[in-house]
């Protein structure tokens, strides 16, 4: 990844707040990071660090109160098919459409493709996630892992500028999760898509990511931005070493106050 080109996604000084019925809560505070083309960029942190909120902001579902999110130089203001989301929940597929129709609907209703071209594109990506046999099944007949594969196929078929994944494997069992991680990497080898991936698992971050953004909680702030390991070494001693390092960074008690941060 050369940093000579302009970043694909540029997040600068983003403060996010949301309202509950009684409070206004700051989810992230002045977060900066840049995602370049073909990055597998991980947002990693404990719960409450605002990583999911940050991903939703990149998705355009909420606007920063401070700072700016730019995709290819254009500010992000609302949700759009150039940033496809893959959610954690299994109910993200439209239950009234088959696997194929789900992928197709995204392509057609966003106006990206139509007719035969859309059909072919949908089937191509369903094939990529090994679900050709289930193309005409309804989502409720699929297992959790298969549903997530459909959601990934749907996201990838749109060929978005960046694929946003919000803990997509968190609700899966450990064995399926491992398999899905490997499959995701194989898909990446195939098309080199850009993905922004939220997780709270350090091991998952090291396995999947090429670059890892560490965040601290309450409110979410950037703690570090690290390179992950080369793909071949993600299970060896080096991985354990990196895992220890990230663990130490995430769970070391910070003593800095807000004032110091401002300065």
């Amino acid at each position, binding site marked *: 990844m050369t940093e000579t080109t302009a970043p694909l996604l540029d997040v600068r000084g983003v403060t996010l707040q949301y309202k509950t019925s009684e409070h206004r809560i700051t989810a992230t505070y002045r977060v900066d990071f840049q995602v370049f083309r073909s990055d597998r960029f991980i947002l990693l942190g404990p719960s409450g660090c605002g990583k999911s909120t940050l991903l939703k902001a990149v*998705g355009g579902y909420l606007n920063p109160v401070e700072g700016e999110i730019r995709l290819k130089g254009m500010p992000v203001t609302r949700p759009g*098919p150039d940033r496809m989301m893959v959610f954690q*929940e299994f*109910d993200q597929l*439209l239950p*009234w459409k088959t696997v194929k129709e789900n992928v197709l609907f995204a392509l057609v209703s966003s106006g990206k493709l139509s007719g035969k071209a859309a059909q072919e594109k949908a089937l191509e990506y369903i094939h990529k996630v090994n679900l050709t046999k289930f193309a005409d099944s*309804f989502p*409720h007949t699929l297992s959790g892992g298969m549903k997530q594969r459909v959601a990934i196929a749907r996201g990838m078929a749109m060929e978005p500028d960046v694929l946003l994944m919000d803990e997509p494997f968190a609700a899966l069992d450990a064995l399926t999760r491992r398999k899905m991680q490997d499959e995701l990497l194989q898909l990446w080898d195939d098309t080199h898509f850009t993905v922004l991936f939220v997780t709270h698992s350090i091991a998952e971050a090291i396995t999947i990511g090429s670059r890892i953004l560490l965040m601290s909680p309450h409110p979410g702030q950037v703690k570090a931005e690290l390179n992950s390991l080369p793909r071949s070494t993600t299970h060896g001693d080096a991985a354990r070493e990196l895992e220890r390092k990230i663990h130490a960074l995430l769970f070391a008690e910070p003593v800095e106050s807000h004032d110091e941060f401002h300065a």
Partner: protein
Amino acid sequence: MRCSSPNPSRVTMNSMPETDAVRPDVLRPTVDASQFGVVQRPLSIGERIYNIGAVRKLAILVLLAVAWEIYARWLHNDLLFPTFSATLRAFAEAMISGGLLGKAWTSIKVLLIGYSAGIALAAVLTTVAISSRVGTDLLETLTSMFNPLPAIALLPLALIWFGLGSGSLVFVLIHSVLWAVALNTHSGFLSVSTTLRMVGRNYGLHGLSYVGRILIPAAFPSILTGLKIGWAFAWRTLIAAELVFGVSSGSGGLGWFIYENKNQLEIANVFAGLFTVIMIGLLVENVIFRTIEQRTVRKWGMQN
């Protein structure tokens, strides 16, 4: 696998068996599927027949008819409670010569007009309600005001406003359908999961296309319930209204048929009129709504 080490906690767990002995690894070959007696076996004919809902329901209907027949024969009082066979005979006669078919059709025509107008108004009201907070308040206020108001209570007013025609009937029908459908549709919209909403917006859908392509299908189980309740309310209101003010513009409906025959003490015909209402109800519920249900919410796995 050694899962315990000498530490103080072990003292308190003395009910646990000692597992310090090293156990060997065990590998067992699996048996080929052809060795099993049954991997997959078709259900017997009896089981399959029992699985058909229509058969089970038909059996219930037959049982009820038999019970009716036996009780009525035992009672032996045609004026109070005619037998099932006498009712069927009266029904057949009224169908062929007594104009029951025409009267039923008159009722159904008015019913369909009122029902569809009610649904259309409910659609407008819920769309307004879902798109703004004031709209929600409006729907909630109107519903809590008018939903408990019996349609029949509005009938005297409707007669003054719209006269003795089908206009009054349609008015009370709309009133009985609108609130039930609007309430259910709105609560259905509200219960659509955040994830599905975000998915819809992710595709760039908004406005009517968002309501039509995401909210309506996602809320369809509730909408269908609303439609069913609305249908039942409409039927009740219509028959009751016809009983109260009888004939409208020369040709009465089913309610009028029942009323007229009661006056002439043709009780078998009264039963035939009620029987018609029941038959139409069964038909709509078990054929029309069931088909819609099977082609939508059941197929999509939103309802079992």
